């Protein structure tokens, strides 16, 4: 498969159409059957692969930034007799295990982004289910605020994964049934074991959808519901959106360069080093709208997001990501102050929420994350989150002989205390200090203070501080040791340790996906030569190992 590119825009969509009509946008799924990322796979019945979902993620993102006037988004199908048949099974069967897992992760992030848009950006989502919605198709709908199902006596919603494919719904379907839609567990059990799902009155009675609408009043009702959802939003009708032009990116054999970020690829050491550059000049409040996508906090968020996705999908063997920064911490803090003071501005709100999602994407990335705070770095405020997202953070104490860059400092801003909650609903610092609330208190008191390595270590904000004598050797040993461990065990270890604190629907979705789905995907009952996933489409029956584990 060619390298997967996450950069797209509506003029290049093959599978979606985005149409805005005042406060309402219609996002129409009309999958091009010949447009699969996998050669020879036919995307029948509005089934999707990663390529389809990349466009969806792009549309959801653009709606937030480019269309402040859009208050409600109606997701509908452009095909007559189907809403969406879910993830394409032939594509899944052909994909490697790591692609499948990354695909599920990405689609989950996109559905959570839909829920985030509704909850925090007041951009509500309506699922206009005008035909059968199976598996991932129903799960996509379940991410929306309001589900309307056409009552034509034949269209059903269903989660047929278990009876049909011997796997589980992969995009939070089970969790949203019980936790979000609060479907009774026995009914959920029946629903998930019934291939054809539920339609009409039963679907409403079981809370699988919010309403059923006859075809004759369908179009009018979709519009009416979309407008009603729009009325619950505070998005500014008169604001001008900002364009998100294509990211500038150069990919070489061992380096990827963006305007504010570069990635060095060291395949020998299975290492990707991501270096973020701070703002070249202190951002100015008056300039936010004029700069738009080049406004430093937004530009860096986009580049970091793209880099993470690129590494996840296209560089599976680079098991370690080292995070670095270069620049003036004071300038980063000016940007943070802007994001803090103008939090009520719709665009600033979007930028903050985007950073939240990018950082969560990092949290969910199955690579060892090490942040190195070195002389000349600018880990302050928002960028300091990269220190708290990492599995370990090492800080350089003092300076190197002959190096005239300033000593490494770490600075907190107000944004480190709640602007960027993790999936568990807590800030990274809160999660870090779950067992020592006094450390969180102390951290609050040093907002804006430039902390040298010794202080940062003392405050528990970094893992360790090393001076010139030890630094190179300690870092080398740490990276070499890490690269020698089992990649699988590391993925599990890191996910466990990063996921401290309370459970939320989001943590449950990812936790259960990793624990159950990824296990089932590996088992012979699904993926073996006689497994359901492998045999799907051939008509042949899977052979199950009867042993319950």
């Amino acid at each position: 498969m060619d390298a997967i590119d996450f950069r797209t825009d509506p003029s290049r969509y093959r599978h979606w159409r985005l149409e805005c009509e005042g406060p309402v946008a219609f996002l129409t799924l009309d999958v091009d059957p010949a447009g699969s990322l996998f050669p020879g796979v036919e995307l029948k019945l509005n089934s999707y692969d990663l390529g389809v979902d990349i466009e969806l993620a792009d549309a959801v993102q653009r709606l937030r930034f480019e269309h402040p006037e859009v208050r409600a988004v109606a997701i509908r199908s452009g095909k007559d007799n189907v809403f969406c048949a879910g993830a394409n099974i032939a594509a899944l069967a052909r994909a490697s295990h790591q692609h499948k897992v990354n695909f599920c992760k990405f689609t989950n992030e996109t559905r959570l982004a839909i829920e985030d848009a509704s909850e925090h950006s007041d951009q509500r989502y309506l699922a206009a289910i005008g035909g059968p919605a199976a598996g991932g198709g129903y799960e996509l709908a379940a991410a929306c605020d309001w589900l309307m199902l056409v009552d034509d006596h034949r269209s059903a919603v269903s989660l047929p994964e278990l009876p049909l494919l011997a796997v589980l719904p992969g995009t939070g379907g089970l969790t949203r049934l019980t936790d979000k839609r609060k479907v009774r567990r026995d009914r959920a059990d029946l629903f998930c074991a019934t291939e054809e799902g539920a339609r009409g009155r039963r679907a409403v009675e079981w809370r699988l959808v919010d309403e059923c609408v006859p075809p004759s009043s369908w179009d009018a009702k979709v519009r009416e519901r979309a407008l009603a959802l729009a009325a619950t939003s505070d998005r500014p009708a008169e604001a001008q959106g900002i364009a998100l032009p294509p990211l500038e990116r150069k990919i070489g054999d061992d380096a990827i360069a963006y305007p504010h970020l570069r990635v060095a690829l060291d395949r020998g050491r299975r290492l990707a080093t991501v270096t973020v550059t701070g703002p070249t000049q202190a951002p100015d409040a008056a300039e936010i709208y004029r700069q738009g996508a080049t406004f430093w906090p937004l530009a860096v968020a986009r580049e970091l997001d793209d880099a993470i996705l690129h590494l996840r999908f296209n560089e599976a063997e680079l098991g370690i990501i080292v995070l670095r920064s270069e620049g003036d911490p004071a300038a980063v803090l000016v940007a943070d102050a802007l994001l803090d003071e103008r939090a009520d501005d719709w665009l600033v709100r979007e930028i903050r929420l985007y950073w939240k999602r990018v950082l969560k994407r990092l949290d969910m990335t199955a690579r060892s994350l090490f942040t190195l705070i070195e002389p000349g770095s600018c880990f302050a405020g928002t960028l300091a989150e990269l220190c708290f997202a990492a599995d370990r953070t090492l800080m350089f104490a003092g300076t190197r002989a002959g190096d005239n860059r300033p000593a490494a400092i770490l600075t907190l801003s107000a944004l480190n205390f709640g602007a960027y909650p993790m999936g568990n609903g807590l800030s990274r610092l809160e999660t870090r200090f779950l067992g020592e609330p006094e450390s969180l208190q102390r951290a609050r008191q040093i907002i804006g203070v430039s902390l040298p390595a010794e202080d940062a270590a003392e405050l528990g904000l970094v893992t360790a501080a090393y001076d010139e004598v030890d630094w190179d050797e300690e870092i080398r040993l740490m990276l070499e040791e890490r690269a020698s461990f089992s990649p699988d065990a590391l993925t599990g270890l890191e996910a466990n340790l990063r996921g401290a604190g309370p459970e939320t629907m989001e943590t449950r979705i990812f936790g259960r996906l990793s624990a159950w789905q990824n296990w089932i995907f590996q088992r012979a009952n699904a993926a073996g030569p006689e497994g359901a996933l492998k045999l799907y489409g051939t008509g042949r029956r899977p052979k199950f190992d009867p042993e319950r584990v």
Partner: protein
Amino acid sequence: MSDSATVDYDGLIPNNVGLNADPRLRRALESWHPGYLDWWRARGPDGFQDSLVYLRTAIGVDSDGWAKFGYVRMPDYRWGILLAPQVEGRTIPFGAHKGEKAWQEVPGEYRALLRRLVVVQGDTEPASVEQQRLLGATAPSLYDLRNLFQVNVEEARHLWAMVYLLQKYFGRDGREEAEELLRRRSGDRDSPRLLGAFNEATPDWLSFFMFTFFTDRDGKMQLQALAQSGFDPLSRTCRFMLTEEAHHMFVGQTGIGRIVERSCAAMREAGLSDPTDIERVRALGVIDLPTIQKKANLHFALTLDLFGGEISTNAANVFNAGLKGRYREDKIADDHVLTGATYAVVRLRDGRIVTEEVPALSALNMRLRDDFAAEAAAGVERWNAIIARAGIAYRLRLPHVAFNRRIGEFAGIEADPDGNLLSAEEWQRRRDEFLPSAADDAFVASLMRPVTEPGKFAPWIAPPRTGIDGKPGDFEYVRLAG
């Protein structure tokens, strides 16, 4: 259980399935019955409910017992539940369970698949009755009127057959589905019938004959495939339904044949040699052959859509599971398992129509469709023989499978009846060359005037060669009420 070959006429519902000994099923059917009669009155033939119709009723399932003729008012027709006799020791003839004992009860693992098969088949039966409900008002003769009603009551009995399976074998879900079969309505926007062709209008008798020729033939193919089922009650039900379905085919084959015959005769009488001189042919009060061709194009394409996608996981599943076989599975000489076999499928590849070998299991819809097309082509040749005998230089033919499709490989493209791909604009421009235009429909509609005198026929259709049940030409097949 009573002897399955004997029909019990004592109860409300004639049957050979021992209904009296099965109070649960009897209760279910008896509670469904009033709703069924309401449906028949509201959605069955319009305006002839009190007429006496010379109908065939099944009184037994053996070869000489299933066709008893007599006058009956349609609402009093003895719809019932009749299964072909059980074959001792029958085994599952194909798929992964080949050679195992045929199922007498629904296997749990296939409950959903089987129910779906029965519901889809069941939904088509009342649909065609609904589609044809207004045709009685314009019947070209009492003979044809009677044939229409015979088709209608038998389609309705086929509904009974499917309802029996749902209620007997599928529990509460089955009972709900049985109710839904009465609730959906052909062509209704809010609760349409499940399959596209069964929501199309049947506006005139030419359409009716085309429907019985093409679409009822799809029904026959599906029943033939289901008659092979390893689920024995389904197999037995469908085997008996097939004896009735043959008559529907006969109505379509001879109906179009008689129209063709009359058109050719009229042209000859008037000395017209050019069958494409539509205006002059129509002036004779008969239907021109090019319009018949266009109607055939329409109905053939609509019917092909009923076979589903050329490559179908579902078709593979139901075959492998032993639930639905191929047409005449028992006559095919292969392993009946098909896991290693391939089948040639016509596909669209990079804008071209090509033939590809694909795994035979996933190509079963295509195979059934090919069997259908071969049979339909043979029927068309019988019409061509009539044209040839009249000395007219014209041939009717089936359009290419890519023509005017809404389902499957060719749903996204346009093609002419020869299979040449057309742009959307060209299709729009030339559509009326291939399919009946509004003017064609209006002309056919203008001919639709009822003829109710015994022995007389509308001027656009020839009389049949022989009567039903050996009756003479002037037999009063329908005694119209008051």
